[in-house]
């Protein structure tokens, strides 16, 4: 725990030093926007140095020998550890915790919304709680699946001993706690009330908490870019002998494609936020109409990242779910090449559809038709993912296990999410539905129904690999049903509310909307309670569950050929890949030769 304490202390010292130095130079108060900026930057540096960047890395820059932390056992998780499996678990636990926190906030919101009128949250408090819920959950969806399973599984699945840049990898994770701390301490500065979208001019003129939002989210973007860089490089250069691109497990493809996107577009979000910051602290007017700026410019830049972000969230989720479906249907992944082509189609199209979020924004009208066409075209590559999933289930030998039950719920949800997306791509219907509860329902179907379901299903499927123990199957299945039914009961009524005229991001609404809101609130409490079962099952099983053995699913990919949990550096001898990972039922087929070849030098 020493590094963590050091990090907290140095982080605080850095923050205070930065803020007070700013005050000393320019006067004003330490809660001014500028002081917060310098405080955050020095605090971030202090935090990183304290956690181990100095010892494990920065010392080398000054000609000193690096002193990486030698902690073992559970203490590793609180240090600057470079083992990709440790980092994967750090991501998994951190983001499940943030998921539960963001979920608890949603329950408080549903409590306020359970009946019309303003009950116990002020209008302002509601807006701020909604904004916090939004950004925490978006972060979870962006980095949860990719950070947790991308880090844990990619090296194992491609037969590598670690990521290409292990220290960069540790850095990507340790940038996350300052993001969470920054966001969660924003209430000290009046919080932020602009949703997760932070549209100016509101985000230029509101409370100082918005500055912490900007700094935290920009830091989060840095973490995403570094993580993406690492996964792209690892997959491109560190595949085991024989692991050709055509034999790559589908999750690796999902993580790879998502990482390429995150490497290409995250800067745009960061840049747009930094322009807001400059408008606030440096007197620029990028988004100030009175002085020649343009509020719509922000929306273009923001969605240039934030639409692809949906695919950064969902491509790894596609990968997780197709892995689960293939291994538990015990059949080759149907139309593997078409599915991979679908992933690439999504990567390509996702960067040229952003303005479908802006049909009612007042942007140039000649953009409407092309962006509608491009957005609707994305249904074609996405359809290939469904083809892969449904084709694999067809004629399979379905193993009735929790992850597969969740995969069924996921396909159901994602079908609804995908089809309702068409109503928002179509200009005519979007004009009515934009900024209503229809949008809220739609994106929860894709992000929760798609990505969070994958996070949860994956946490069951790889649980025996990560912990070496088996979760309780019966409780797992009860939770799978609970989650799927509960989720649908919460969000189906919201479609009706949106169509019938209820706008989003409101603490109060006319009496007319009372019924479905009350229903959704009760369903939300039931859904929320289900997570006790989830957490209980996994926490208990991690300590007391029966030993799982190396390969409880009798699966073919490389991670299942190692002990559970896998040893440090994974493969004593690098495997040699000789066949496709999913050739279930193909007589005599082998994925990797155990009597491994070259490269065993340690």
């Amino acid at each position: 725990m020493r590094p963590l304490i050091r990090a907290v202390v140095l982080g605080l010292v850095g923050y205070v030093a930065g803020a007070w130095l700013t005050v000393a130079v320019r006067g004003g108060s330490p809660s001014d926007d500028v002081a917060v900026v310098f405080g955050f930057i020095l605090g971030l540096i202090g935090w990183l140095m304290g956690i181990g960047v100095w010892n494990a890395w920065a010392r080398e820059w000054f000609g000193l020998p690096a002193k990486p932390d030698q902690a073992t056992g559970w203490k590793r998780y609180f240090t600057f550890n470079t083992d990709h499996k440790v980092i994967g678990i750090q991501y998994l636990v951190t983001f499940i915790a943030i998921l539960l926190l963001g979920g608890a906030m949603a329950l408080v919101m549903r409590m306020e919304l359970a009946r019309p009128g303003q009950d116990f949250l002020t209008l302002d408090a509601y807006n701020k709680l909604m904004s916090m819920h939004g950004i925490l959950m978006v972060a979870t969806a962006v980095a949860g699946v990719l950070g947790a399973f991308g880090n844990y599984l990619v090296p194992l699945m491609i037969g590598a001993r670690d990521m290409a840049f292990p220290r960069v990898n540790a850095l990507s994770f340790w940038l996350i706690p300052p993001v969470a701390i920054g966001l969660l301490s924003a209430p000290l500065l009046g919080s932020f009330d602009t949703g997760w979208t932070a549209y100016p001019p509101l985000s230029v003129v509101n409370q100082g908490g918005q500055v912490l939002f900007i700094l935290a989210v920009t830091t989060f973007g840095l973490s995403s870019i570094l993580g993406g860089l690492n996964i792209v490089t690892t997959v491109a250069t560190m595949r085991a002998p024989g692991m050709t691109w055509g034999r790559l497990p589908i999750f690796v493809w999902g993580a790879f494609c998502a990482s390429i996107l995150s490497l290409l577009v995250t800067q745009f979000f960061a840049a747009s936020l930094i322009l807001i910051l400059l408008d606030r602290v440096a007197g620029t007017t990028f988004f100030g109409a009175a002085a020649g700026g343009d509020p719509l410019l922000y929306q273009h830049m923001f969605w240039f990242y934030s639409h692809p972000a949906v695919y950064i969230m969902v491509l790894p989720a596609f990968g997780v779910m197709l892995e689960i479906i293939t291994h538990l249907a015990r059949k080759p992944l149907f139309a593997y090449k078409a599915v991979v082509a679908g992933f690439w189609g999504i990567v390509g199209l996702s960067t040229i559809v952003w303005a479908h979020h802006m049909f009612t924004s007042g942007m140039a009208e000649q953009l409407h038709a092309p962006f509608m066409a491009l957005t609707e075209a994305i249904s074609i590559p996405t359809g290939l993912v469904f083809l892969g999933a449904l084709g694999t289930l067809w004629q399979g030998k379905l193993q009735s296990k929790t992850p597969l039950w969740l995969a069924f719920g996921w396909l159901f949800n994602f079908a609804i999410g995908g089809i309702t997306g068409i109503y928002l791509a179509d200009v005519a219907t979007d004009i009515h539905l934009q900024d209503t509860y229809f949008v809220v329902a739609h994106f929860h179907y894709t992000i929760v129904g798609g990505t969070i379901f994958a996070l949860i299903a994956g946490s069951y499927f790889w649980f025996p690999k990560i912990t070496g123990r088996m979760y309780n199957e019966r409780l797992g299945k009860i939770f799978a049903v609970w989650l799927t039914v509960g989720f649908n009961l919460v969000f189906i009524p919201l479609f009706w509310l949106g169509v019938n005229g209820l706008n989003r991001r409101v603490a109060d609404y006319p009496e007319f909307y009372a019924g479905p809101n009350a229903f959704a609130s009760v369903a939300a409490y039931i859904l929320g309670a289900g997570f006790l079962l989830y957490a209980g099952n996994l926490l208990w099983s991690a300590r007391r569950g029966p030993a799982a053995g190396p390969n409880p699913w009798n699966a073919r990919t490389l991670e299942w050929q190692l002990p559970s949990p896998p040893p440090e550096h994974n493969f004593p001898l690098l495997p040699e890949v000789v066949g496709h990972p999913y050739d279930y039922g193909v007589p005599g087929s082998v994925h990797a030769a155990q009597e491994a070849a070259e490269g065993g030098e340690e």
Partner: protein
Amino acid sequence: MNERGGYKQDAIRVGLLWLGLVVVLEAVWFATEILPRQYAEEAKIIDDAFNLLTILGIPVFSFVVAMLIYSAFRFRSRNDASEDGPPIKTSKPVVVTWLVVTSALALAILINPGLVGLAELRANPEADLVLEVEGQRWQWVVTYPNGAEVRDELVLPVDTRIRFDVTSVDVLHSFWVPGFRTKIDAVPGLVTSVYVTPTELGTFTDDVNLRLQCAELCGIGHARMVMPVRVVEKAEFESWMAEQLTAEAPAAEGRG
């Protein structure tokens, strides 16, 4: 029964299940009134688009559901041992058919309701009445052609093509009347326009969807940034508009 025969039988059964689901869901859609009441021509265009998308979306959704239900029951492995399924890696005819069908669907909805709906909404750039709307935290200010500034109720003449020229003095807002279905953001420094042709008389007190609701998050008062809407006969509108001016005048004199 050989394997091929088995596949064929499965295909027929899942096809029947699909068909059944389509019939039931379409019947439910046609039997229920989900969409709110239309108060404008534009609402009809947008609702037609909504209907068409739903009618086309139901078979797609039903296909996924039919496959899931059938697979869950029919392909469930009875023994827990890890026996493998048939090694079907791909099927070119299936992949090609799938691509053709999904592409055709995407193209179909792009043309109608997509481009058709867009063309209908933009068909007529004329307006019989132009109202200026200004969003400000947290109220709407509407200026009528005679110069009257109104804040408490938006009164509109029926069967009149109205253009709203919308702008904002502070942050983003959005002009939305659910009963009309149309929406446009109020952006500082920009005048955006939206056309509405009211076709039905009505008032906010009878239908909650006759309200001008701010739809873009604008701060504390966003939820309650609402202006009641009333659609009246043309003659009534004219006299109401004139009254607004006289109602305003004494106040203006008082200030002067």
